[in-house]
């Protein structure tokens, strides 16, 4: 899922000093699951903004809504009237949701309330970590199901570098596992260590963000 985190309140409030009517729109999919932008966080944001603006903009009226998936126009459509009736929309979705609202409602002022961080999974309750960098050319078959692009600090394809110590990455030994230790352990476990003997050639980054904004067209779904 997409993992995000709330922006600092002052950064959000700074954009709302002269707003009369604010509509906070949450998203009950990825960002709700990672406890950043679901209905509950929308309510917390509503209260926190009331408190933050109580001296500078006490008359602000805040309406709170949460919808199923903000990246889909169909789910956003019922909000059309309310969006028109508010000065500002504060989106608590990921960057995709924010842009969907902005695209769908061209005259609305839409601000983000979250910092969208990565594609990852919950390691345990309250802890999420990155797993996929969306490079557009999956290499997990070669590396025992551990991604060196997303999980090695230097995205090495012929790792590990010299900074791997006791299974940890030198960039942040407390929090980051050395992806190459994980790759080595996994391949050793499944009897595929020989895969690491080959020199992995430079990656074709054109399928990643480096090839420009990406689009997938499935011809049989398009008339």
């Amino acid at each position, binding site marked *: 899922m997409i993992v995000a985190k709330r922006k600092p309140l*002052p950064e959000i409030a700074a954009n709302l000093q002269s707003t009369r009517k604010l509509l906070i729109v949450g998203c009950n999919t990825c960002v709700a699951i990672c406890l950043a932008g679901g209905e509950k966080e929308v*309510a917390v944001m509503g*209260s926190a*903004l009331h*408190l*933050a603006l109580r*001296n500078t903009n006490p008359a602000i009226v805040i309406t709170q809504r949460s919808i199923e998936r903000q990246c889909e126009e169909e789910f956003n459509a019922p909000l059309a009237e309310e969006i028109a009736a508010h000065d500002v929309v504060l989106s608590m979705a990921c960057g995709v949701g924010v842009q969907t609202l902005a695209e769908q409602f061209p005259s609305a002022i839409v601000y983000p309330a979250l910092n969208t961080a990565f594609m990852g999974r919950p390691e345990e309750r309250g802890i999420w970590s990155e797993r996929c960098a969306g490079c557009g050319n999956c290499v997990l078959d070669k590396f025992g199901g551990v991604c060196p692009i997303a999980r090695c600090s230097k995205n090495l394809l012929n790792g590990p570098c010299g900074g791997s110590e006791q299974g940890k990455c030198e960039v942040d030994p407390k929090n980051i596992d050395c992806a190459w230790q994980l790759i080595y352990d996994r391949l050793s476990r499944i009897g595929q260590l020989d895969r690491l003997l080959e020199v992995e050639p430079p990656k074709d980054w054109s399928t990643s963000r480096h090839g420009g904004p990406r689009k997938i067209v499935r011809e049989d779904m398009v008339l």
Partner: protein
Amino acid sequence: MTEGNKIVLLGCAHSAGEVVADLAARGLALPAHVEWVSVPCGSTIDELLMLRAFESGAGQVMVLACYNGACRSVDGSLWAEKRARAARALLEEAGIAGWRLQFCNIAPNMAADLPQWIEEFREPVVAEESK
């Protein structure tokens, strides 16, 4: 009670609730500016409850949970403490001094302590008012 003078006590029914009942039984009602809100356990207390207490007009909020190891639901007091810390950070971001939210562990037999805690908690506000 004037706006902003209200103190909300947000507490676990098993410990703080017993204390409040004990005080009432002795004819020692909580001061008028104190609103007592009973929750079943420290686990119930989240940032939203605390922020809303302020939003509803409280100038101060005191969160009361059992001592660690005395919670009927094991981690409730730890949860309440962590949540209070998170709410305090959020209040600070909103420009409200963190000391206005206080977390205390309490046991059912501490009826003698609570009124004193409330008094001490109010001190800075009283000092402010008398200026």
